[in-house]
């Protein structure tokens, strides 16, 4: 029992609600929302270290012992993601301060961004399946508002599809919960794990697990990603960066939990399916990334490739593979936020979105160019940047499991990521400088600062990987041995 566990959800939630009453005080909103996220990050660092000494922490709400009440469970995996969420969203908010515009700030941008973070953190921390559904909805409703905020025509048209597909998948989620409750009679994740292990994962439970697989695939963009490129291209940069960094990751997290904690008995069916879906996602995402010439589309397809890549780690299901996937998740939240911010900044500076319409930007904005190059290298997994270790471990996991097909696809897609981003880099930053010094839109320092911070973060994460590895190893160990999680939750009942 530790009351701190609820903080990563409560701090953004309460701050978000309070900020609704400070609508016209933009300065107050900015300061408070930033401080709330910094406080969340602080709490998660504390929790992360506490878990290393005390083991998995849990908080039973209202003192109802599991499996009867709802509870929050904090293991290394979830708290690592909570910490990264807090850091990334704080930095993205810094970018939003000077880019989102008064109209959106005045229309509750900060409260909804905080509610989004609350939903994301809640989804990472909850130990109850129905509570996961509720946290998903908190996150999704906030995202519906954020994607439509501003009400431009393209935003509205794209968000209709985004909202419709997510509402549909939410009802499928609820359907899955209904079936699962009817079959095993519990919704506490640890209890589910114990009961499924007890009765054996028969055909019926496997079908239910595939229903969950479809739901989370829709949410994370695994194979069922057709809605993603359009809706991630429509909103303004800061919001797109939040989406690209956080939303798909929650789906991926849920999939990892479901298929390592509860439905891990039939890997020949479920994990093979995940492997096939990941492979198709890698192929489809790569094709999209090299086919389009609109920067926002290319960047969105890069999100899809990553989803496929991380789930290769789940499909192979070895401890090293999990370590790689966790490390890559953390890395990708940072780097996707950076990529979206850079792409948005380029569009803001030139007023164009297609790569053939820009040229020679490095002459005008050298630091921006080098940051983009750094991002490209980091995404491609060049050591010592942060993408390297994740790629290495996922690759090693695939070799251990003998899935050479997935291994080949994962690394070919890595090449195509490099190609798609270098194509942006060469077309836009190299070549003749077409913007003269008089026409040059000044690059505000406040826009560049968040990008530099994220750039430093990716270098630091790459070089300081050693110190993070302790937590990643613990997280992967828990994923590999579900009984650790089950014991921590149901332990003192026995």
């Amino acid at each position, binding site marked *: 029992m530790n009351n701190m566990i609820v903080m990563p959800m409560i701090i953004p939630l309460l701050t978000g609600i309070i900020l609704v009453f400070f609508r016209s005080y933009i300065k107050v909103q900015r300061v408070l929302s930033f401080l709330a996220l910094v406080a969340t990050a602080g709490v998660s660092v504390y929790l992360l270290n506490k878990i290393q000494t005390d083991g998995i922490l849990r908080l039973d709400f209202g003192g109802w012992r599991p499996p009867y009440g709802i509870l929050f469970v904090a293991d290394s995996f979830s708290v690592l993601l909570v910490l990264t969420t807090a850091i990334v969203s704080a930095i993205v908010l810094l970018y939003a301060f000077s880019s989102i515009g008064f109209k959106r700030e005045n229309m509750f941008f900060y409260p909804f961004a905080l509610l989004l973070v609350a939903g994301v953190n809640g989804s990472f921390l909850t130990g109850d399946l*129905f509570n996961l*559904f*509720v946290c998903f*909805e908190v996150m999704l*409703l906030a995202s*519906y*508002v954020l994607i*439509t905020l501003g*009400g*431009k*025509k*393209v935003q*509205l*048209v*794209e*968000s*209709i*599809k985004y*909202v*419709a597909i997510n*509402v*549909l998948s*939410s*009802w499928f989620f*609820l*359907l899955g*919960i*209904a*079936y699962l*409750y*009817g079959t095993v009679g519990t*919704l506490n994740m640890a209890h589910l794990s114990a009961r499924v292990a007890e009765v054996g994962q028969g055909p019926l439970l496997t079908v239910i697990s595939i229903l969950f697989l479809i739901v989370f695939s829709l949410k994370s963009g695994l194979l069922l990603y057709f809605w993603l*490129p*359009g809706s991630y*291209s429509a909103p303004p940069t800061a919001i797109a960066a939040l989406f690209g960094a956080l939303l798909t990751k929650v789906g991926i997290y849920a999939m990892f939990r479901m298929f390592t904690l509860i439905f891990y008995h039939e890997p020949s069916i479920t994990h093979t399916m995940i492997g096939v879906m990941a492979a198709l996602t890698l192929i489809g995402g790569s094709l999209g990334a090299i086919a389009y010439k*609109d920067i926002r*589309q290319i960047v969105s397809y890069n999100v899809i490739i990553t989803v496929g890549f991380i789930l290769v780690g789940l499909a192979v299901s070895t401890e090293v593979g999990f370590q790689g996937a966790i490390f890559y998740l953390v890395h990708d939240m940072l780097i996707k936020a950076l990529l979206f911010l850079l792409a948005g900044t380029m569009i803001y500076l030139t007023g164009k*979105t297609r790569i053939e319409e820009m040229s020679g930007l490095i002459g005008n904005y050298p630091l921006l160019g080098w940051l983009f190059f750094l991002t490209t290298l980091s995404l491609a997994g060049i050591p010592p940047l942060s993408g390297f270790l994740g790629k290495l471990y996922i690759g090693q996991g695939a070799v251990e499991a003998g899935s050479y097909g997935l291994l080949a696809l994962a690394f070919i897609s890595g090449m195509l990521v490099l190609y798609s981003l270098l194509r942006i880099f060469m077309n836009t930053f190299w070549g003749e400088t077409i913007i003269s010094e008089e026409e040059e839109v000044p690059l505000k320092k406040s826009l560049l600062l968040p990008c530099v911070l994220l750039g430093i973060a990716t270098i630091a994460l790459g070089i300081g990987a050693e110190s993070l590895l302790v937590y990643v190893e613990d997280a992967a160990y828990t994923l590999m041995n579900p009984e650790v999680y089950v014991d921590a939750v149901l332990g003192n009942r026995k």
Partner: protein
Amino acid sequence: METLITILAGVLVTVAVYLLLSRSIIRIILGSAVLSHAVHLLLMVMGGLKKGSVPLLGEVSDRYTDALPQALILTAIVISFAVTAFLLVLAYRTYQETGSDDLREMRGFTDE
């Protein structure tokens, strides 16, 4: 009774699928609302319909009704209400901007 409700849920799902597959936004919204009701009914059946007395301390009975599904449905109904309300406003705003509620006319990525 359980069989009857299950069949009813099935009929609702059929209607919902038909509506969801149409091109008009308003039908899709109605379809998602009907689908949510179907799922709520199914959730109720899964917990078992009324089997015994209320699960309260002091009630003496050898059978009790499972209260959990009802708590779940209540939460889900609230969420479904919020989402449907949001979707309706969104559809109206989109109609104002584009003058259409036909999804086929909204295809493709358009700038501004």
